[in-house]
């Protein structure tokens, strides 16, 4: 098993439910263990069991307004999806919105 963390910067952290740690309103973190050999794609498919994550991130395939980082490095979906998770990996899901 490998331990991974997925961090959501969604401004709805407290609404995601008890599985998530929400230090602030805008951020929620999910810690979980997955089987050896699990890919990022498989991890994301598993996360669809959370309705808000499904509706905000996964509807209509992947929401194109999302940026992903793996261990604080921005990655393209095409780079990231096939990667096999390793122990201690941290994935951040970031909206790409910017301020004026």
């Amino acid at each position, binding site marked *: 098993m490998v331990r991974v963390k997925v961090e959501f910067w969604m401004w709805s952290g407290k609404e995601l439910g008890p599985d998530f740690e929400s230090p602030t309103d805008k951020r929620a973190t999910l810690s979980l263990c997955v089987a050896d050999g699990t890919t990022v794609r498989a991890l994301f498919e598993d996360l669809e069991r959370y309705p808000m994550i499904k509706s905000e991130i996964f509807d209509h395939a992947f929401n194109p307004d999302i940026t992903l980082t793996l261990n604080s490095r921005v990655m393209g979906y095409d780079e990231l999806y096939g990667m096999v998770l390793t122990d201690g990996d941290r994935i951040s899901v970031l*909206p790409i919105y910017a301020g004026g």
Partner: protein
Amino acid sequence: MAVAGYVGKILRVDLSEGKTCSEDLDEATLKKWVGGVGLGAKYLYDEVPPGVEWADPENRLIWTTGPLAGSGVFGAGTFNIVTKGPMTNLAGSSQANGFLGAYLKFSGFDGIIVQGASPHLVYLWIKDGKAEIRNAQHLAGKDVWEMEDLLRAELETREHDISIFGIGPAGENKAYFSAIVGDRGHVAAHNGCGAVMGAKNLKAVVVHSGDRKPNFPIHDHEGLKARNAAAFEFAKGFGPFYKWGTGGALSGIYKMGALPVKNLTTNQYPEFERMNGEYMRTHFQVKPKPCWKCGLVHVKDVTVTEGSCAGFVGEEPEYEQIAAWGPMIGNTDLGATVMLTREVDRLGMDCNESSWTIGWAMECFNKRVLTTKETDGLDLSWGNVGAVKELLNRIARREGYLGNLLADGVMRASRAIGGEAAGWAVYTYKGSSPRGHDHRGRWVELFDTCLTNTSTIESSWAGVHTQMVDLPPHNNPFSHEEVFTLNAKFNGIRQFDDCLGICRIATPHPKMVLDCFNAVTGWNWSLEDAFTVGLRTVNLLRVFNFRHGMRVEDERPSERYGSVPADGPAQGRDILAKWPEMVQGYYQLMGWDEKTGKPLPETMEKLGLEELVKDL
């Protein structure tokens, strides 16, 4: 018969002659150019021939609203400025929110064309379909806030009986990145439009609110209400703006490597959680300050409650202002960003170019290229907000060696200093600088900023929201091919937005905006129609720019702006590795010649611009 959505009149002001007159707008012109940047671009092209420079009286300063301004669409008090500006000495387009876009229509005009130059400082007073050029010599040297106070007092009006936009000391002294500022903190910032206003000796435009109701026909009132409500519901869920303002985006932008830190010398800024909109709204005292009929109310006043500026009252900084006066200058005191934001606004300058210029000067000071001899005693160590405040004032008044040098913007200042420091400045070779982002972590905006014809982002805004206009999603933000492809395919729709007199934050979804547009005008346009108007505007400005000396070799970032981040989330990503291929591919998709970058005749014909082919 008036055209729905429009008053049908444009005000022409000749400051050299001291005369004003009203001109009719016909339906064919409105359907071709719509308003805002489109209509402004048309007048700029028609009336400013090659050879006219930005400070010449023959240049035009064109203020335009659009069919949605004052219609009841939330936050539609926006107006657009088009002019030939000093940063690029090419076309520039900039918008400001507040009230003027709505009030100008209520006072009888869809826009104002300012030409000529007055022999002394004047302001323009507009009420009930009439305009008057008035003496403003008593306002000389006043900052924007003082100017607003004095004008409201002498006109004996309450705060929202009039809308005031004008220039501060920076515009009067023709600092290149002067802005047009008004309605207590709203800014049309780009390409030095305030310097053009200063060159014309026009201190302010003051517009009465009329009876604050649409004085122009609206095709479908009930339909508009429903579509406006739907657009508002979408806007509430779009990003952090409704709850935390644009500053709410700061932490996410940091995490994606797009927060500008110390003139792009690093991407490390561990204090980011204490410098965002959520922190500000949960620690400072906040008071709503909505624009015209805005339900989103992302604009606030704040009272600082901690740090070196505790007790200071000012406008809540937008994201770009926090970025400009926080990480960019090495400051970690959030209250100080409120103070510096007010300072820049009251002096009448663009916060982004101010910040890139001062950030570069601070790097030069820290690397001892500039010393206290050149700074006239100022200690420009990172984070010294007091020195930054003083330097802003010197720039606005062109005081001292450094103040005068920096007032020309970072490209010109860095070239004047030369040597290694010339490579540290962040700008595009056309002469303008980016918004308050480290675009090395956001390639779509870096590419857009370099290829634009408006002097600021043209195709993108907060990325390219492809799904909003039925385009396929992108997969990799650092794919050279995807970036230029998406920029080309998305280009046009945001320029259409800027034709309408709306705020992009209050109404961010192009299709919902189009629904409101059709309800107001009754034109029943498709998304393709909207793209066509936007692309027509882009291409018209591009032809204007070529005629005024634009060079394709200048469509690229400066050395630092296009550098590879040494750390942070975008570490090692190199946009310049395939820059020529990106530019060539973009030209091709835009229907421009692959080598010269000029719009092809068939592109011009498709957009109804065939009469301009001869101009190229």
